[in-house]
């Protein structure tokens, strides 16, 4: 039930982001983007406290990330150049998402957003997902035709991510 998996570069821009409900991808962009604050905070805290310790898993970023108390129909005026129309988009606030973070030694971050309505996900499952993600990412980096810093366009990585999402859901 991972609904979104993102790889964030050291400079905090997305290298890869993929979500399951494709039609509302922007929502996940926002979700992952805001969770970077915590990731950074955690990294800096770790850096201060125990530089040697090689725990890459950051754990829960926002444990109960649901904006359930918010007005349920937050209307965002969206604009497209040809015709303007109002779309109900920001139901982002209604989702209950749990975000998990993971940071590699090269400060590349992985964020997994899970649907928290499903509580069967245990900590070590998340860990193993991250480990798989890390391995796959390492493969991508090993590709001599990949420029570090470019967005990831790898079929192998893609299929691994989608497998992860399917398997989890």
């Amino acid at each position, binding site marked *: 039930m991972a609904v979104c998996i993102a790889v964030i570069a050291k*400079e905090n821009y997305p290298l890869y982001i993929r979500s399951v409900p494709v039609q509302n991808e*922007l929502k996940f962009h*926002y979700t992952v983007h*805001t969770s970077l604050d915590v990731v950074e905070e955690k990294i800096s805290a770790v850096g201060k406290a125990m530089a040697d310790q090689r725990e890459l898993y950051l754990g829960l970023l926002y444990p109960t990330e649901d904006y359930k108390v918010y007005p349920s129909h937050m209307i965002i005026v969206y604009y497209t150049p*040809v015709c303007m129309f109002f779309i109900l988009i920001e139901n982002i606030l209604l989702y209950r998402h749990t975000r998990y973070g993971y940071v590699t030694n090269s400060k590349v971050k992985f964020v997994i957003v899970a649907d928290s309505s499903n509580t069967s996900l245990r900590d070590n499952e998340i860990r193993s997902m991250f480990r798989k993600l890390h391995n796959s990412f390492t493969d991508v980096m090993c590709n001599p035709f990949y420029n570090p*810093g470019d967005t990831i366009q790898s079929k192998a990585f893609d299929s691994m991510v989608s497998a992860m999402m399917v398997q989890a859901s």
Partner: protein
Amino acid sequence: MSIPDYMQCAEDHQTVLVVVQPVGIVPEDEFFRIYKRITSVAQVSIRDSQRNLYIRYRHHYLPENNEWGDFQTHRKVVGLISVTTCGSAKEWPQTSDRFHCQKDVFGATLYDSRLLVFGLQGEIAEQQRTDVAFYPSYDDCPDVEKRVEDFVESIFIVLESKRLDRATDKSGDKIPLLCVPFEKKDFVGLDTDSRHYKKRCQGRMRKHVGDLCLQAGMLQDALVHYHMAVELLRSVNDFLWLGAALEGLCSASVIFHYPGGTAGKASGREPSLAHGQGQAADAGKRHRPGALTANGISADTSSEIGRAKNCLGPEDIIEKYKEAISYYGKYKNAGVIELEACVKAVRVLAIQKRAMEASEFLQNAVYINLGQLSEEEKIQRYSILSELYHLIGFHRKSAFFKRVAAMQCVAPTIPEPGWRACYKLLLETLSGYSLCLDPKDFSKGSHRGWAAVQVRLLHELVYASRRMGNPGLSVRHLSFLLQTMLDLLSDQEKKEVTQSLENYTSKCPGGMEVLTLPDGLKLPPVPLSKLPIVRSVKLLDLPVSLRPHKQKGLLENNMSSKSPFIYSPIIMHTRGEERTKKIEFRWVQGDVCEVQLMVYNPMPFELRVEHMGLLTSGVEFEALPAALSLPAESGLYPVTLVGVPRTAGNINISGYHTSVFGVTSDCLLDGLPSVRTSGCVVEVIPSLPRLQLSTSLPRPFSSRLSSSVSVQLFNGETQQLTITLENIGSEDLETLEVTSKTCNTKEKLFGEFLSWDLEEAVSQLPLKPGQSVTLTVNVKVRLDFSGGENLLQDLNDDGISVTGLPISSPLRQVLKPRAETKPLGSESSKTDYNHVKTLEAVMTFKYSGGAGKMEGYYRDLSLGVHVDVEPSVFFTRVSTLPATRTRQCHLLLDVFNSTEHELMVSANNNQDLVLHPSECQRMAIQVAKFDFHTLPQPDQEAVRYTNPKLLEEERLHAQASMISSTLGSLSVSLSLSLSLCSSSLDVVVNGKPCDCDIIADCKVGDAVPLEVKLTNRSKNAVGPFALTVVPFQDYQNGVQNYDLQDAVTFIGSNTFYIDMVKPTENSACMGALLFLYTGDFYLNIKFQDDSAGQGKELPPSWFGLPSVHIKALEAPIEAGA
């Protein structure tokens, strides 16, 4: 209590609340001016004690909130200052009434109140009243601050008395139960005598006293009271008040630990007042009781003892806050209190730099439900959340909430959407999404960031700015979107964005000026350098004919080097230098100069670029803008931009100017690192005249030369070429030089190919603009078309050669065509001769004038002359025949007409020879022999030279040719027969020199003197010789009769001896002949080399022996007899 005060912070607990309000009609700005002055008295140190009183002013306060004053005393309005205008004494009672009404609103809690009356003068104003102050006007109120201080002091007195009253009221049997508004009904009918109830009363009162102590500046007492209250309330499970007591404890500890305050600058306590910051600034200086002073010892030593145990540590503060908030959370009606406590805790955590925990508090605050919020409250709530996130360094979260707030401003449920506020809030989110509106930040490499989010934000900015009625901003944002996010937009989006951009620009064209927003934010201009994308910029040289050249002599001045060293191994290889490096060629003032750009259109549709021009610096430059239309997804497309420099100097092509979709942009090359350029600085020299060349001949093809003419000529033909030079520039033409250079060096060219007379043209200088001058050039072609080696074949080897000697006819024509005799040879030779040879030359006109001439520049105009030379007449063979006279000979020439026309050849003897096309005829020309040695240098070169010269003279229309002068050196072997013999023999008969065709007359019976003179022309001495003269008769039928002893007799010997003759000398021998009969006699002169005595006869050809023809006539006497 429904409206939370998001600005609250922990130290607000020690303040007393004073409400400042206008009464009646007070101009708003005047009120706020007074309000500002009043609020400057935020802290008053009380006389006779070391305590300070802090005042919190509000100009608006809900009485509803006031009801919570018992719960937390800083929420209680204790002072009221009213500001009013009173024009006359009549109005005074009314004003006074109003003031009393207002007092009643907060009546129950007020300690004291003041009325400031402005504008009233006279009797009433004279009264000395403590609660009313009169001022003549808003400008004339010097002691407002003093009044407020007095007022605050009076409040303090009441406060202090209350505190003492409550604090000492321990033994009082009846402690009133303090309660919050919503509790009141819960306690109806409760047993007031139970221990539980009493404890509750005690605890709440303790807490209340703690609040009062804190407000009165007695921090230590407050801490003690709070601790006691916590214990009391905990035992009775009075959670709401327990929370309040814990919060009070936290506040007191925070005040103790962080004397600088927790509000921070970012929170902006009172947005309308800059004063808020001033307060924060001096907050650090103010002395707090109980806090450590500079020397580390508190003034109040008694409180020193209890501090350590009463005051909470930083960790504990947070723990206690958590606890308090969790207690508040149990009461639905205390949502505001809970929320405010969260905000306060976050501020404390922000100071402690514990972002993670702070975010947890904030998270909690987000979930606190305050019931139905108004839209305005929502906006306020989101923006305060955003601010708090910003405070703890969570910029992304902050941006997220700010954006939500912005969206809330324009929610459809709001009747009047605040687009302006929305736009302002959206702008503030930019930093959180790491987006900067300066396009320069995006010029470096590919875009990296949260593209989807950023594109969305930009779209929102565009829409908001449009709705707030500022299309200029929309255009700016849209162009920014196009410029920076172009790669990330889909084709459909690109189309839509550009369409709407065009819509907006029709109302408000986009420009390059910096847009300044009301709040001071500057929107830098966005040059659309990606529409189209420019790949390279190349400055083009002027066309060849207009390129200026520097006079050679002035080159030294140009060698200005920066370094004093002739050679330096240090070469500057910086990119910047490359960019600005100067270009070899020069431009000329007043001439159209070109710059070539390679552009391509990244859009999926046709792109119209208008007013594309050059941006330059350094020189006044008139750019001539171009409009172009690039097809969709075009490849690299060359575009030439032109312009005219108007002054001289160094011009720097700094960029280009475009107008796309109604947005004009100036794209500077410095900001476009992807553009390749070979240098942008070029020297512009002063103006020079410009010549246009036209010729009388057609121009068949364009060549790399500026112009060229082509003409077809037969070999030897001359044609006149008229060249007209017109000055089409704006400067006078002052000098003109003409030179020519033949390009084709393979061909042997004889004589002057191009010749002209410049004198006439030069005499017309200086040439004013618009005038023209003509020059006539003669084009002459003289080429060697001869076959070369077979030319010199001996004519004797073919059957048609004439061998008979002597030939009486001087010119002998052999009418037999050569083709008949030698078909094969002529066939091959024909193909050889048929080809057309080309001759090319370049005429260069070097001219100068005007200001450019002063600087030593000139221009070249070149005219290519291309001549196709067709062969006309060949001499296929040349040979000689001896003529009848020893001093002359016959030159035999096989003349071949290779043209398709009938032609006539005439030689010097005016005898015309008509040749039909492809006909070959032999002609003989009688030429005089000449002295071989007197020729200047009859070497091989001369042979080559003279041979074609001879040939060309016999041309289609040539009327005369002087062969004799040059014939001698046709070739070495030929010249043997052509030249005079090494020794020549002159025979003088009867006093007359005698030669072949001269018949010497003599009379029979007379002695005919005969003189034979030998002249040595060789370089060696010759002789001695024996010379024998033998007479004979020729019957003209091949029979020669030598038996003439009867007819001719010699007087003396017929044999002479000639001694050795030295070079150039001569020797003569005399004899006489006597003819006995009439008749034609010939003399045969034979030589014998007598030197060795062997008497060998020498061939007559060595000496060029003349045959002497003597006609003996009958003597007239005899005839007479």
